């Protein structure tokens, strides 16, 4: 029998993989995709718990997460374009303007 724990463990694994990607990759777009991965892992938890609790609220939340993800995608990618225009690169090693 598949319980909510299975889904949650899966979501944890996917989330960790996303974290791994964010921490190791240098390409901003790939990092961005890894963040989407993490968001999706969270979504899975939401839906699994929503199902478990027989409650719709979690799914509504997923909906909002998706909205935010969409907005993020729009703005984030626009930022990347703007950045690429300046630096001819989207390698995060070149994003060090925050340095002291």
């Amino acid at each position, binding site marked *: 029998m598949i319980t909510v724990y*299975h889904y949650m463990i899966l979501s944890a694994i996917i989330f960790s993989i996303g974290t791994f990607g964010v921490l190791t990759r240098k390409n901003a777009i790939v990092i961005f*995709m890894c963040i989407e991965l993490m968001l999706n892992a969270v979504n899975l938890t939401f839906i699994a718990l929503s199902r478990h609790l027989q409650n719709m609220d979690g799914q509504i939340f997923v909906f909002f997460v998706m*909205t935010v993800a969409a907005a993020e995608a729009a703005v984030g990618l626009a930022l*990347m374009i703007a950045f690429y225009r300046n630096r001819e690169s989207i390698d995060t090693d070149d994003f060090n303007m925050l340095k002291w």
Partner: protein
Amino acid sequence: MLSILFYLFAVVSIFSAFYVTKSRSPVNSALWLVTTFICFAVLYITLDAPFMAAIQIMVYAGAIMVLIVFVIMLLNLGTAVKKRYTHALVWGGGMSILMLIVTNFFIRRSIPTGTVGDITTQTIKSYGHTELIGRAMFTDFLLPFEIASILLLVAIIGAVVLSKREV
């Protein structure tokens, strides 16, 4: 039957998620990501959430992925130059494994509690998932819904402003 489906798609999604991080070319990553999204959509269906599955495919696998791929094309990003990032690999890998362990413990030791509702598989079947979502969204969550729409509007304007050539 359901457990087989779950394990199958779980394994596929883990595998493809790993390849998202591993592929050298961003386009490959994007395609692996689409695979993950689709697996997730299937998992949503196993969770009696067909509408979320549809949205998953449409928004993620459709809109967002198109956007990403489009940007990759636009910027003409090639395959990443092979660099040895062992340092980052070790640290990042270590940290994510630690994180996994920690969350595992967290999940194993906790019992999910919360307001238990009355939506069972039967209600979903009789009313339809879409209707239930719609009811919730346009009654209790109307204000957040409107705010979300404003957020999207802002994001659109922001994206336009940011990507315009001369600001």
